[in-house]
């Protein structure tokens, strides 16, 4: 998979250039190329008019490229002055440290951006926006000409945002070029001079913000043909399997979720990264139990406080990161498939290899798992087949509600459409399926209904016949 295919992007000094694109459009990869973390395998980069080859993080730093990440990369146990010094002073282990100069410089830089932070404060004690300001001070101190900000407002309050915007405008006024990445369209009109839209690793358009409106931006972001054929919905939705009433969990950042999933339907759960989709799934599976609202399964109110309880209630959760939370790579796929049904398939303490083999062979046949046999270890399988094993483990629990989290992430095209077919068959067999996906065509192609999350709650319920524009608009929080 190529993350970037053809990107043209230019930045002037003294402008704020917004970079926009849906999940996986290639924004992060582009940043990594500009900061020297990744090497491009084609094309050219020029900084300050000079072509640059073999950009490394150190070289990018020297050329005046600074990046402020969503999660500031500061040392929490050191003071603000020490953190700034670490970025700016030469890294020689025997150099004598000039403490007063360190403090003075830190104070000066912080004052310059109007930040009311003591140079002696420990970074651990600072709030998120204060840490971002320290990062900006570092960039300024390093004489950065290009400052990249990756969704800086994602965790800021309204008031903190205004402070940050003022700093960004100051940077622009002093001649710095700012690349500003955001999911919030309203910020673009407030702050940016120009905007570039990325889609599927390509830049699909750059124009002045004054010439664009929100609708035309969304159109640019999603404008693509659905290149894949999705299996059609064949089943009529039956009774309600799951109903959520004002469900919330402070620890997961999820609040007031209302949702219904009926037997025989696939409900797509869309939203941008960080909107709370996986968190909602983890609540339903009892990993981070809910602390507000109600869950109804088949009409009965239930509390779910552990994965065991969730399984007992007929909920199955195929997690997002199958390498970390799904298939146990060292174990045979047969053992992986029976992992969640031990008490049922092995009453008493002894394993019954005959029953296990039979079950594994059935699933290998039904799901079309490509493996040399039930004894093949998980790490001998391709990503798509691992995902099928993960799916088999949960189907073995005979669930009524199946929650899939990014079921086809990192899976090749062939296996992807096989998994789609399997999902459709499961719905036809009467399961309620809740499918989280960042893949917009997949959401549109597979879902009977689409729930869109934003800021920890469901902000829109759309029909399965909605188009990409509607979903993206809801995910971005555009109000009509």
């Amino acid at each position, binding site marked *: 998979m190529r993350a970037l295919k053809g990107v043209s992007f230019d930045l002037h000094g003294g402008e704020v250039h917004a970079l926009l694109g849906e999940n996986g459009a290639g924004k992060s990869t582009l940043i990594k190329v500009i900061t020297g973390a990744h090497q491009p395998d084609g094309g050219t980069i020029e900084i300050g008019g000079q072509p640059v080859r073999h950009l490394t993080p150190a070289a990018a730093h020297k050329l005046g490229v600074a990046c402020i990440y969503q999660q500031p990369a500061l040392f929490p146990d050191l003071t603000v002055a020490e953190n700034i010094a670490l970025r700016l002073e030469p890294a020689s282990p025997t150099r004598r440290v000039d403490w007063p100069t360190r403090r003075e410089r830190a104070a000066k830089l912080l004052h310059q951006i109007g930040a009311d932070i003591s140079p002696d404060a420990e970074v651990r004690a600072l709030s998120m926006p204060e840490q971002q300001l320290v990062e900006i001070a570092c960039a300024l101190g390093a004489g950065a000409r290009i400052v990249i900000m990756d969704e800086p407002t994602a965790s800021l309050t309204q008031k903190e945002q205004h402070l940050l915007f003022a700093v960004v405008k100051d940077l622009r006024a002093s001649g710095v070029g700012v690349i500003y990445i955001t999911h919030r369209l309203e910020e673009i009109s407030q702050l940016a001079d120009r905007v570039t839209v990325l889609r599927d690793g390509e830049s699909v358009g750059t124009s002045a913000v004054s010439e664009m409106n929100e609708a035309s931006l969304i159109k640019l972001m999603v404008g693509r043909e659905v290149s894949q054929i999705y299996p059609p919905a064949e089943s009529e939705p039956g009774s309600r399997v799951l109903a959520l009433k004002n469900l919330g969990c402070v620890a997961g950042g999820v609040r007031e979720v209302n949702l219904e999933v009926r037997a025989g339907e696939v409900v797509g759960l869309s939203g941008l990264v960080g909107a709370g989709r996986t968190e909602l799934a983890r609540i339903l599976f009892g990993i981070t139990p809910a602390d507000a609202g109600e869950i109804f399964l088949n009409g009965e109110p239930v509390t779910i406080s552990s994965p*065991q309880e969730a399984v007992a209630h007929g909920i199955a959760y195929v997690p997002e990161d199958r390498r970390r*939370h799904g298939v146990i*790579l060292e174990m045979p796929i047969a053992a992986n498939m029976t*992992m969640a049904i031990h008490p049922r398939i092995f009453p008493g*303490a*002894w*394993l019954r290899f005959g029953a296990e083999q039979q079950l594994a062979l059935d699933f290998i046949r039904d799901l079309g798992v490509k493996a040399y046999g039930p004894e093949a*270890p998980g790490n001998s399988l391709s990503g798509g087949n691992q995902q099928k094993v993960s799916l088999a483990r949960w189907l073995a629990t005979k669930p009524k509600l199946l929650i899939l989290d990014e079921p086809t992430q990192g899976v090749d095209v062939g296996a992807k459409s096989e998994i789609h077919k399997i999902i459709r068959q499961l719905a036809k067999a009467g399961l309620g399926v809740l499918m989280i996906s960042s893949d917009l065509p997949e959401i549109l192609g597979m879902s009977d209904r689409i729930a869109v999350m934003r800021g920890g709650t469901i902000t829109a319920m759309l029909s399965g016949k909605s188009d990409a524009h509607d979903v993206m608009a809801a995910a971005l929080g555009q109000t009509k």
Partner: protein
Amino acid sequence: MKRHFRELSVACALGVLLLLLALFAPNFFDAQPLLSRLTAAAPKLVLACGVALVIISRQIDISIGSLFAVCTTCAGLVAAAKLPLPVAILASLGVGALGGALNGLLVAGLKLQSIVVTLATMVTMRYALLLSQQGVLINLPPGAQWFGLPMTAGQFTVCGIALALLVLLAFGTKHLAAGRFIYAVGSDSEAARLAGIRPQLTTFWVFVFMGALCGLAAVMNMVQSPQADPNGGRGLELEAIAAAVVGGVAVSGGRGNLWGVLAGLLLLACISPALTYAGVKPYWEKAIQGAIILLAVVADGVRNRKKRN
């Protein structure tokens, strides 16, 4: 075949060493000294099996040498009080399980790092024992040595216990659900948790079992001499861990086989007699054992790296 390559290669190394001994030092296979050596190694095998389970579950226990000494002392005191030997054995197992439960509670219950927890319990138990017993050997009643059997029968009994335990555990890790849980938790405790296994509970019971095995090993060791030594067991934890690691138990958890542990233990145990017969100074024993451990770890590292690429 491919799956057990690591264990088989250790077994081959052991085979080659035994073959060399058979060619150049046939005395090594004389019945009585060989039985004595095996008897001395038997308690270590019990500990190595236990610690292998601990490592497979992605934990470590370095307190087993100290717990072994505590169990020895308890069993010795009970036996010296003229109570029947089975009572002394039960006391040893019980105290061991209790010590293991303490480790397990701290590691699984409070989610602390097992290396730090067992370091603390190792030092605490060792010095509490020293203070209470002042290092004085406990004289055992005549019926205690070799379980009251003749020496050869006693030696066979000790070796038999170790072998029986090994067979039971090797079978159990493969055929019991509990065995699979240990591997699952050690490979990927989050995946295991999502699949409805309780990783903390599994970890707790592994530590309890390890403790009980310390008690068993203590008894198997105590009956070999007329006195119980409260200072015993120093460095046993390292010998047990070394045997497990050489035998192919991955320190990263989730991988290992108890037959491999047996091969690893025997390989390390044969170094010393081999050196004696080869006329090399016995001081080299530890250095060569260290080199073998290093070789095993490096081999695993190289293998893992290859797998990743």
